[in-house]
């Protein structure tokens, strides 16, 4: 390659000589100038660095899942939820009117439709969160970047990070948020409601023969749910056996060979995800493998992804939906359980 054509070589032309007289001075000036600019900017900001003092009085203290203690003088009135799961919980404990901002892709409860969006739960928009002036920001333990959590906390914002990895986490979060927001009664009622329905459905199907189920999230690569996923326990509680359940990951990737070898009786899909992940888009692929019992017998189960992927209070509906389809003979009873109480 001709190096000179890229202008890399220093050529002696009259112009550069003209410059070179002044070069030393220029170089030095530039360096000083640069230093000065940064120095000035840095000093300007350092004036504002002092943290505001926090006075203690009748402060209430709550501890979240990162062992961080949140201090409240009054119960919070302006809440931002950067976690779809927490947003749904706020709806259940009738505190959704306190929300002033939610994360992208939060659709439930319907009352939050027009609220400002503050970025996604894995990439929150710090600026917008601050501009909404919240008393409490709820973030997801699984999704929120720790650097963002720490950043908001440095700015004296109350950030609660809540873990929701299984059903008992959800119940715990309902009670926790109810306590913090002064909606204890609603929270207790909702938690009891959900728990009793969950347990009823679970015990209803526990005695039944358990079909071996395969939950197909995606095709390229074939992705399922493993032991570390919340959906694994949901399938189990709905009276099925998750064939990928002994893989010690949350979302293991499998080969088609291993799926055929494990010969699932039922296949579970989520719907409403759009494009390649929906059941109708996945079926053409699976129908090529008639040796899989689920394909041969056309036993396909479809669950709304909004219910199953959110790990919020609506997982009870997901549980009911899976249980009904795994055990059609119990469908009526399950529907009755779901109708018995409100929500």
């Amino acid at each position, binding site marked *: 390659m001709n190096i000179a054509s*890229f*202008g890399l070589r220093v050529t002696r032309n009259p112009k550069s000589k003209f410059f070179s007289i002044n070069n030393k001075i220029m*170089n030095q000036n530039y360096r000083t100038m640069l230093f000065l600019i940064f120095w000035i900017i840095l000093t300007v900001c350092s004036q504002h660095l002092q943290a505001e003092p926090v006075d203690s009085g009748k402060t209430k203290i709550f501890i979240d899942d990162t062992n961080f203690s949140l201090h409240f003088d009054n119960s919070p009135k302006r809440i931002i939820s950067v976690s779809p799961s927490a947003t749904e919980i706020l709806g259940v404990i009738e505190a959704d009117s306190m929300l002033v901002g939610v994360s992208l892709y939060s659709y439930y409860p319907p009352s939050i439709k027009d609220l400002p969006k503050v970025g996604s739960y894995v990439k929150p*928009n710090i600026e917008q969160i601050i501009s909404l002036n919240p008393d409490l920001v709820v973030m997801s333990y699984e999704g929120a970047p720790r650097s963002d959590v720490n*950043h908001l906390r440095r700015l004296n914002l109350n950030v609660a990070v809540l873990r929701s990895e299984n059903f008992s986490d959800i119940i715990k979060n309902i009670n926790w948020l109810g306590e913090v927001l002064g909606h204890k009664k609603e929270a207790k009622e909702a938690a009891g409601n959900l728990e009793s329905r969950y347990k009823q459905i679970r015990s209803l199907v526990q005695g039944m023969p358990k079909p071996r189920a395969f939950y197909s999230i995606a095709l390229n690569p074939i992705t399922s749910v493993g032991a570390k996923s919340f959906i694994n326990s949901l399938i189990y509680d709905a009276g099925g056996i998750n064939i990928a359940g002994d893989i010690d990951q949350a979302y293991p990737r499998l080969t088609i060979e291993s799926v055929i070898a494990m010969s699932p009786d039922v296949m579970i899909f989520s719907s409403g995800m759009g494009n390649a992940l929906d059941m109708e888009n996945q079926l053409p692929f699976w129908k090529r493998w008639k040796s899989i019992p689920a394909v041969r017998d056309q036993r396909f189960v479809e669950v709304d992804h909004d219910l199953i992927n959110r790990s919020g209070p609506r997982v009870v509906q997901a549980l009911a939906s899976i249980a009904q389809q795994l055990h059609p003979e119990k469908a009526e009873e399950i529907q009755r359980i779901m109708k018995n109480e409100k929500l």
Partner: protein
Amino acid sequence: MKNCKILLFAIPICWVLIFLFCWKSGTVIITWAQLKNTVFGEAASNQTNIILLHVRLPRLLLAALTGATLSLTGAVFQALLRNPLADPYILGVSGGSALGAVVAMGFGLHLLIIGFQIVPIFAICGALLTILFVYNFSRVGNYLPTQTMLLAGISLQAMLSALILFLQTLLEPLQLMQVFTWLMGNIPTPEYGNLLWIFLYVALAIGVILPQARHLNALTLGELDAQIVGIDVERLKKILFFACSLLTGSIVALTGLIGFVGIIIPHLLRFLIGPDHRRLLPACVIAGSIFMVVADTLARVLLSPTEIPVGVITALIGGPFFLFLLWKNKRKGMR
């Protein structure tokens, strides 16, 4: 002479003006008056203060440092290897630090400490190990053949990116998403304590690199010629390689892989002000920093409230612009 003096003042003023404009723009609308109040510490609302001083400013400053570092190291590598395509990526330095950082992130080590501290250490180690390997591998006695070093760097970079891909298949989707967005390049919002530390670090490295500009000029004539003029070429190479690797490692750890800045800014400046490194290197610091500030602002603003990875922006602006310059130069050559 006159021209020169005007430039001396015009460039910093332009820099500050662009910086202020980028400071003002963002998801939340802020007026010039509010910005003025905050800068002079006058009564501005607490919220605006926080957004301007604790959310936007540290990020912009880090962007400036990143741009300065990437374009400066790019220019130095190009001069050292006398290859117009050289930059930290070609030598495997970025790959090494990226691998170090992915290892740290993938094994959840960033959860142990604030997420800021342990990843950089791994990344710097990765960068250093890579350059040590490339250097010792291609060294013949005390002499360092440039071609071998380039080839070793390229093949190592390929191996390293394969290793990163391999690690990615082991990660859980959520971790994968974080690693993936990180690899695309993002400017985080640092604490001022960290920022000061990074600034000192970068300033130190720049202080080491800039005085070598004269020697780099001689080196462009060829290593033999440079030696004849009385430059200890091997020592010069060692100093610059290690200074640049440390610099790149520490920046890559924070921002991920941001491409194109290290190639486009030095070349653009060569078109504009010529190849003399005594002018080119400081110009790279200034132009690189403001380029990155603008690119990061675009990344923040274009799709707000979500963000575009800044690596996407630099490649999308940088690529076509670079092609345009090459095309123009080609036509000039034809005429």
